[in-house]
């Protein structure tokens, strides 16, 4: 059973292609406190691998990556 993740902010990048998803995620995370969770929605097929690479590079956490109704949903936690 998936535990409920409560997001502090939602970022909708539907319809946007590279590099917008990672750029917008970067901007949004900076406005949040350490430990807060950003829920990001994207339709770019490149977003799943890009967001994972972004997390590895920035040190922020990918709590969950899933697909819902043809969209990609990422739960990201600001780690630093």
């Amino acid at each position: 059973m998936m535990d409920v993740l409560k997001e502090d902010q939602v970022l909708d990048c539907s319809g946007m292609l590279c590099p917008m998803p990672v750029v917008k995620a970067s901007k949004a995370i900076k406005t949040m406190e350490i430990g807060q969770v950003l829920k990001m929605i994207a339709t770019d097929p490149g977003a799943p691998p890009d967001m994972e690479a972004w997390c590895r590079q920035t040190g922020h956490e990918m709590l969950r990556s899933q697909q819902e109704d043809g969209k990609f949903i990422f739960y990201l936690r600001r780690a630093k």
Partner: protein
Amino acid sequence: MSKSDPNAPKRLALIASKGTLDWAYPPFILASAAGAMGWEVGIFFTFYGLTLLKPKLTAAVTPVGNPAMPMKMPFGPDGFQSINWPIPQLLMTNVPGFNALATTLMKQTFENKGVATIEEMRQMCVEMDVRLIGCQMTMDVFGFKREDFIKECEIGGAATFLEYAGDADVQLFI
């Protein structure tokens, strides 16, 4: 800086040497994505790439001599949009305004797919403190002045760029 200090952020050094619309995307996309990952980025704009530092971007594209360019229409029903039109080079060079048309259609295609404009991407780079370096030599050769370019750029030569690139993790020529 990056090589000598393991805790320092990664560095990307790009040379942007082309000024057509199709070649304007790669440097700004790479720079924005790297900036979004916390990297340090510097782009050296030289030769025709220098035109990408003008306040008003007028980059155009031509299908002439570009057989790899898909010639698809960004409007109409799906079946129509998927047609790759085989347009003879002779027609491209003899019809006035063909390049302007190709430029408009390419911009429309990118807009339809949700890709940001060059202007938007350049602005993102500025906001992410990407170093934009205009080539002094190119300016002299083509008669450009400092006032012809956006205020956020700096002017330098090959040595300026090479010093920056020498400590970069990724160095690319576009």
